[in-house]
């Protein structure tokens, strides 16, 4: 299984990770090897097998719709890189 340079650039954008040009060939090699390993799966006969998402086949537990958490905005924002007036600061999005 080979993975192309274009694939890696596309996946890097999806994953929001900057990949520099000089890193791409190492990634082509490493990801190609990992996908080779993973390709063993194609040999398995899985017709009529249900996918397993949870080892105990549990489903999402529901709880009463009640307020249980208290507002801790200040504690949570104290560890943020940049805040102002209770808001998280990011670079300008809309001109």
């Amino acid at each position, binding site marked *: 299984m080979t*993975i192309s340079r274009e*694939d*890696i650039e*596309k*996946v*890097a*954008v*999806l*994953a*929001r*990770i*900057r*990949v520099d040009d000089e890193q791409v060939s190492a*990634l082509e090699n*490493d*990801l190609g*090897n*990992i*996908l*080779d*390993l*993973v*390709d*063993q*799966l*194609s040999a*398995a006969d*899985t017709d009529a*097998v*249900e*996918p*397993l*998402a*949870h*080892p*105990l086949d*549990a489903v*999402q*537990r529901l*709880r009463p719709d009640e307020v249980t958490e208290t507002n*801790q905005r200040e*504690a*949570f924002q*104290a*560890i*943020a*890189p*940049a805040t102002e007036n209770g808001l*998280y600061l*990011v*670079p*300008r*999005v809309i001109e």
Partner: protein
Amino acid sequence: MHNKSVAELSRDLESGKVSSVELAQQFLDRIKQQDDQFNSFISVTEDQALADAKAADEQRAAGNATPWTGIPFAHKDIFCTSGVRTTCGSRMLENFVPPYNATVTENFRKAGAVCLGKTNMDEFAMGSSNESSHFGPVTNPWGLSNGEKRVPGGSSGGSAAAVAARLVPAATATDTGGSIRQPAALCGITGLKPTYGRVSRYGMIAFASSLDQGGTMARTAEDNALMLNVMAGFDPKDSTSVDRAVPDYTATLNEPLKGLRIGLPKEYFSDQLSPAMEEQVRAAVKEYEKLGATVKEVSLPNAKLAIAAYYVIAPAEASANLSRFDGVRYGYRCEDPKDLMDLYTRTRAEGFGTEVKRRILVGTYALSAGYFDAYYLKAQKVRRLIQQDFINAFKEVDVLMSPTTPSPAFAQGEKTSDPVTMYLEDIFTIAVNLAGVPAMSVPAGFVDGLPVGLQIIANYFDEARLLNAAHQFQQVTDWHQREPQ
């Protein structure tokens, strides 16, 4: 004092032979004197520990002691500790101080245990050698006397090395594909990965949520039982936590093993296993026969597909979980981002290490349009086949036994150049996580002066049987008492 188990220290505290403050100070001194050679701690919380020890002594004086009151231990740096830096081995969280405690943290705190610090680990628990930590590799205490620098295994390598070196009697750990059992094996200690859902994942920084499970590391099976007594149980804050009664895991340690049915999966005694390792494991199984167990060969025909399935499912889940690290709400943020996209992509490029980025990219690829069915859905189907193998095996036997790893601790740097070679280190441990069953690693001998681990696997929620089997083995062997020089 440093060679004593949690159970022994608990008795010494109860009889007044030693105080919690004295105990904390002694272990803190050992960490200070010795951890330079191992690098098993990322943070040592001396002031907090001494304050907690003083409070523990007061609790005991007031007649409110539990078996854990005043016992020193360490947390893997993946469990959130309120007010104490929690890094997960990553630059991304180098300065992250959580505003809350993990449920596991809270449980030990309520029991009165004294946390001495946070142990080193592979970044975001991704690794089998503790070499992917942003805070530097951990060195295995075994082999050092010959001048060898060997890996402790991973990802819970710091916890395993700290327990092996007697810097703490016990430490918490987590296991997504072998991260408790493999380092326990390589460091010659006892570790347990419970059934998926047995221990709360709340506040345990997520890697692959359908596989992650918190667990225990100590030198004896009895201490693992004491730890699990504190850690196990339903937690409404974890949506996959299981609501099921928790037994007293120490109560059944002394049950006789007569009639225990042991299965040896033939796929785990393959040519990947070195003859010297196999000899040690077979000798351990012989000990069980002497204790009255019966042994038969069984088969896990799909186990050979476990690594392939895991390296789709775990990276896919990791890519989703780690999307939360965006440089906005907490954690690392790059300097002078020019726009929002630059903030995200550069924060993540600079904040994550090589192996973490590799896995996020693989996971993103496997989940992307056009590949989802071929990779993720296919891997989940194979996962069911693997689970079915275990269900079938446990119709015939009570426990499965195998080597924990194909070989003993390898040299630092030996497997870092090729990720796939590193992944194969977990060849005997990964299927257990895919099935969600509990498993242990128990010291079972030495090869070339390095510890060998025996893996014992049980059916869902049968941790008590695992601990019983391990404890009985430790009554007739002393591998778990051997101390690295």
